């Protein structure tokens, strides 16, 4: 029995460790990153944003959400950090990086928060029914008709974006920025980008945007850090940011450059390719049973077995 046990652990161990090695070798083994070939994207220029929150208002209008609770001229709303919610898919937060202006006043930086529309999204990989899906045009789309409400997407999202309608007893939805799916499908700007009076949000094809943005950074090395947040984070995102202040001082997370689903999908597809692992385990156990306990294969265990003369 010990040998079979050990052999079984060997199999299980090999399954997992092959998956783990696959992870270490990254690009050469295991899962290939996924991304639509030519998605749309947006670049938010944090040096241009003045925190007027017009984008919040436009977002709520386009997505048929109630208007923002706090009036746009109420600046106290910026005194605490907000997160996107079921009634606000985008919010503006204010950060002080420590930089002082000529009058020795702290210079604020305003950061717009919304779904990043990852190129290879964790939420879509996690979703049990495929209710979340990365579309060709770049939007990570939510289909409530498939949703079960398990909230694994909320667990998976590295940017902590999806919000859940916890007050709805039977038909709660996952709520998040839609990238104005219906608008960008017709090659229109998303609501927030169209509304921004400072033109801080540039909309376009992601690849083109990256080229333009890098030229812009190179032309203005004093105004911008040489980094586009979202170019590489979690395998790339459709929404990206440029800034003068270090991103970690503005509430941005330092994230790995590989897609979040890498390890889980490598393990899953490693074990379940052609169902080899379950089939092998079944065969081994059947072999063990046939060798050690053959009467089991002719009669169910329990009362019959006890009545059988052995």
């Amino acid at each position: 029995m010990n040998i079979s046990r050990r052999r079984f652990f060997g199999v299980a161990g090999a399954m997992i460790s092959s998956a783990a090695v696959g992870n270490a070798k990254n690009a050469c083994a295991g899962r290939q990153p996924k991304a639509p070939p030519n998605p749309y994207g947006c670049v938010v220029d944090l040096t241009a944003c003045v925190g007027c929150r017009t984008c919040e208002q436009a977002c709520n209008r386009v997505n048929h959400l109630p208007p923002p609770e706090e009036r746009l001229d109420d600046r106290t709303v910026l005194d605490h950090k907000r997160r996107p919610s079921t009634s606000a898919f985008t919010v503006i937060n204010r950060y002080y990086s420590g930089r002082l202006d000529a009058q020795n006043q702290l210079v604020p930086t305003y950061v717009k928060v919304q779904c990043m529309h990852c190129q290879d999204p964790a939420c879509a990989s996690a979703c049990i029914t495929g209710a979340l899906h990365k579309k060709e045009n770049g939007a990570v789309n939510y289909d409530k008709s498939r949703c079960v409400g398990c909230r694994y997407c909320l667990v998976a999202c590295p940017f902590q974006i999806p919000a859940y309608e916890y007050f709805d007893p039977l038909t709660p939805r996952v709520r998040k920025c839609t990238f104005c799916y219906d608008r960008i499908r017709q090659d229109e700007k998303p609501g927030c980008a169209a509304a921004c009076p400072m033109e801080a949000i540039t909309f376009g094809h992601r690849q083109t945007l990256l080229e333009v943005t890098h030229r812009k950074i190179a032309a203005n090395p004093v105004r911008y850090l040489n980094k586009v947040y979202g170019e590489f984070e979690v395998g790339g995102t459709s929404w990206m940011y440029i800034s003068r202040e270090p991103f970690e001082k503005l509430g941005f997370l330092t994230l790995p450059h590989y897609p979040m689903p890498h390890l889980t999908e490598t393990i899953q597809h490693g074990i379940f390719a052609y169902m080899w692992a379950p089939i092998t385990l079944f065969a081994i156990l059947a072999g063990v049973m046939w060798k050690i306990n053959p009467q089991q294969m002719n009669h169910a265990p329990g009362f019959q077995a006890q009545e059988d003369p052995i």
Partner: protein
Amino acid sequence: MSSHDHPKPAPLEIKFWTPGVLVLFAVMLIGFCFIIARYLGGLAVVTNLDNQHPWGLWIGIDVATGVALAAGGFTTAAIAHVFGRHQYEAVTRPALLTATLGYTFVAIGLAIDVGRSWALPKPLLFWQGNSVLFEVAMCVVVYTHVLYIEFVPIVVERFRGRVNLPGPFSLVNDRIERLLTLADGILDKTMWVFIIAGVVLSCMHQSGLGSLMLIAPTKLHPLWYTPILPLLFLTSAIAAGYPMVVFETTVATASFKRADEMEVLAPLTGVTKYLLGIYITLKIGDMIFRETYVYLFDGSIEGRSFIVEMLAMIIPWFMLMSKRLRAKRHTLFVACTTIVLGIALNRCNVFLIGFNPPYAVNSYFPSISEMAITACLLCSITFFYRLAVTYLPVLSAPSLASLEKES
């Protein structure tokens, strides 16, 4: 074979309603009221869940711990049926019953937890092979059915030749009788397929549960985030199987005043010392390899929780190493209960305590009503366990009264 010496499983034929059962029933009723509240006002009314903490007590205890502790079902089936150690046949039926009830209530707990309970069968329609949760869900669905199939012979044994429905139902007596005979005939020849399938499905989803959190490397604390987390979940579930059987058998035999079954339980935990040893070795090895021991004594709640979790494995492991302690009912029970609690803490650590959403403004602690619903589910399992062993041939330990009469 010692299975011939051991008495056959039989219905207990005891009085069902006792003061203790009434208390169980009261807890169930209270929890049921909160379940109604959940379906009237939504999850927000009864839980402390929020967008930062989407999974709470129900996932940590009802689902993750429930699945891990139901491992007694497939581990006893493996040792007695696959590896042919017939001396352990006596514990397979109670373990099977616990597993069946456990998985049933995992499903019920999940149905309460998901936002759209009515949509719970949707994964059967919309397959999403990239999702770990999809794999776990499919395995749990299939395995629950396998458990019920494995349970059929117990029902057949009880009612075959005795189907005697009253009044108008007596018309179908004959048909039910034939159905039982048919099921018995088919299962007698095919049960081995279900037994092995049960072990395979268990290995798949026990490890799958561990893969769940691997999609959130930035949120799960490094003490638990490891690529071998699926292997750790699998080995810990296998290690927890027999201690759970000891826990539940000891509680059952003590409360039903039956013989303590120590002649089965003590050698069974002799296997556990190896299984638990493998898990502890992997766990400590992983900690050393990834150098996560730096978090152990940083004063954080995670570090302390990890230490408690490990002690709840290591201390009983040393207790099981001693044959003398293993042979004593009380020390064996203490050791096994500690392991069971340690596994529960491990699952809660992975899903709740070690889960650190970066923008969280508050931390999660379960609400009274969440605890009440969890208590309701646990009491329901106990209630239906008692119901099943009262009327079905599950337990085989002789009653203490009959033993006294013999002597």
